[in-house]
């Protein structure tokens, strides 16, 4: 595979035995982020781009803004580190495991406003980062739990597009769920 980075920097804080090649990720608003290739490869999308040899200069990510991208990178870094320190596991996508020390970090990580959360979901989906997608989806699901339909509507600003009759019917259909 051709070296795809314009600047091959030997990092001073080498934690891994691997090549600490860097890649540059460019957000939709033009900001560039330089990250270790291994961290960037947490994203399957980026991994494929790199493996296909298309990452010559920078990898443009037009679907992700800098704000979100920086968070995603933070997530990937943290998880990569944790994976490196702990016993080698097949996959680092175990962010929801109760035995995983990252759980607390993850919980803090997703304490963001709704906009950001949805943007993270979209970014995780686009970049194909399973752990982040699972984490964010679960967070949203948790926001739905224990709420009545009206409360869910208010939380997520969803319009009630039922007529009163339809609503009564649907409610009856799902009556068992309310008990």
């Amino acid at each position: 595979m051709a070296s795809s980075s314009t600047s091959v920097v030997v990092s001073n804080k080498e934690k891994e035995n691997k090549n600490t090649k860097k890649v540059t990720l460019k957000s939709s608003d033009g900001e560039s982020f330089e990250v270790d290739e291994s961290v960037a490869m947490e994203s399957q999308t980026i991994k494929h781009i790199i493996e296909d040899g298309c990452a010559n200069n920078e990898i443009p990510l037009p679907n992700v803004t800098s704000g979100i991208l920086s968070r995603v990178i933070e997530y990937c870094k943290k998880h990569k580190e944790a994976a490196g320190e702990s016993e080698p596991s097949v996959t680092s996508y175990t962010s929801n495991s109760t035995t995983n020390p990252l759980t607390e970090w993850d919980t803090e990580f997703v304490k963001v406003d709704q906009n950001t959360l949805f943007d993270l979901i979209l970014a995780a989906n686009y970049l194909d980062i399973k752990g982040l997608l699972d984490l964010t989806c679960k967070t949203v699901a948790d926001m739905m739990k224990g709420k009545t339909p009206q409360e869910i509507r208010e939380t997520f600003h969803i319009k009630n597009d039922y007529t009163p009759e339809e609503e009564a019917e649907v409610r009856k259909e799902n009556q068992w769920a309310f008990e």
Partner: protein
Amino acid sequence: MEFVCQEGTEDSKKLVSCVENSCVEHIEPNQFNYKLKAKETALSNLTFDSKPENERSVKPKPVSKFHSKKAIVSSNKSKQPLSDDDDALPNFRPSITDLPAALISEILNCLDPKELGIVSCVSESLHRLASEHHVWKEFYCERWGLPIAPTPLDSGFSNEKSWKELYAEREFRSNTMYSGSWDMTVRVWDRFSMKCLTVLRHSDWVWGLAPHDTTVASTSGSDVYIWDSISGTLITIICSAHVGNTYSVARSHTGNYLFTGGEDGAIHMFKIARHCTGAAVSQVSTWIPHSGPVHSLAFEFPWLVSASSDGKLSLIDVRKLLGTCKGKSISRTKHVDKNGVEPPQRMQADLCPKKKKAGCLPISKSWNEAENSLLLVASRHLLSGV
């Protein structure tokens, strides 16, 4: 998940040029939406939901491409170019419903059945997503295993229901409990509130119960009642089903067939056809395998097992019965002498063990020529060893 990403990737490449150009020009809402819709299973009824009273304006952030389409369409008054403002306009709030359906599905994956049911009530589009979600099959099977396939008996079996409907029905069944008593009532209980929902009154001691779906069959004295357990109304009644008390009752899993066992040692099979005002009951078959009262029955198509105080179990394949006796059961069965409880002694110890099935417990088989059915009889001392 891969497919969504791949499409996203392709999309993004197409949209890159859009975005880069969009700083100066503006994207036609329809064209923009079309690109997305072609790739995503977006919630179509939401994208064209323009609400004038809602102060949504064009979302400048390119990242929210997938959920900004709503904003773009609804702002038909102000067609502003997509700019690179970092701050969202204060009134724009992307909704969860702006996410592509696949991602909403992903979120719904984390919910359990009740929560999913509640989410169905939130809005029409969520209802659609939540109801068609594949997890309903998993929820159902996890709790009750795969449903029994429709059987030839069930000619009235309705068209395939959605997994969610199956789950909800079964859930209802599992919430209600029935009890019958010598106080001549059957009570319907709710599992959660632990309260009695309905009291069904009979004219004699209640001997047996067999619920099915939202109905319950009960035997009282020698009669068989069929009730609607939600409304507490009587659907139909079979009077004097047996000579003496009707001790036991069993139903097919579709509810169309009902079996009763009585003090006279006889077992009757009835067909129940529900219609809007009640039910039509017809007796399909009778056989009398026992010399003592039949105290319990169990049915799993096609086998009906009965246990009696004569110490015997009898196992009957109802298919054979139906095949030969369809529609003409009454004439082919032995008539029960209503004056005497004791029916003719049929099963005696001198049965000839003609064909012993390999692998079975030592039970003897005998052919019942009169009714052309196969009966397996076990004697009392063997039962105790089982």
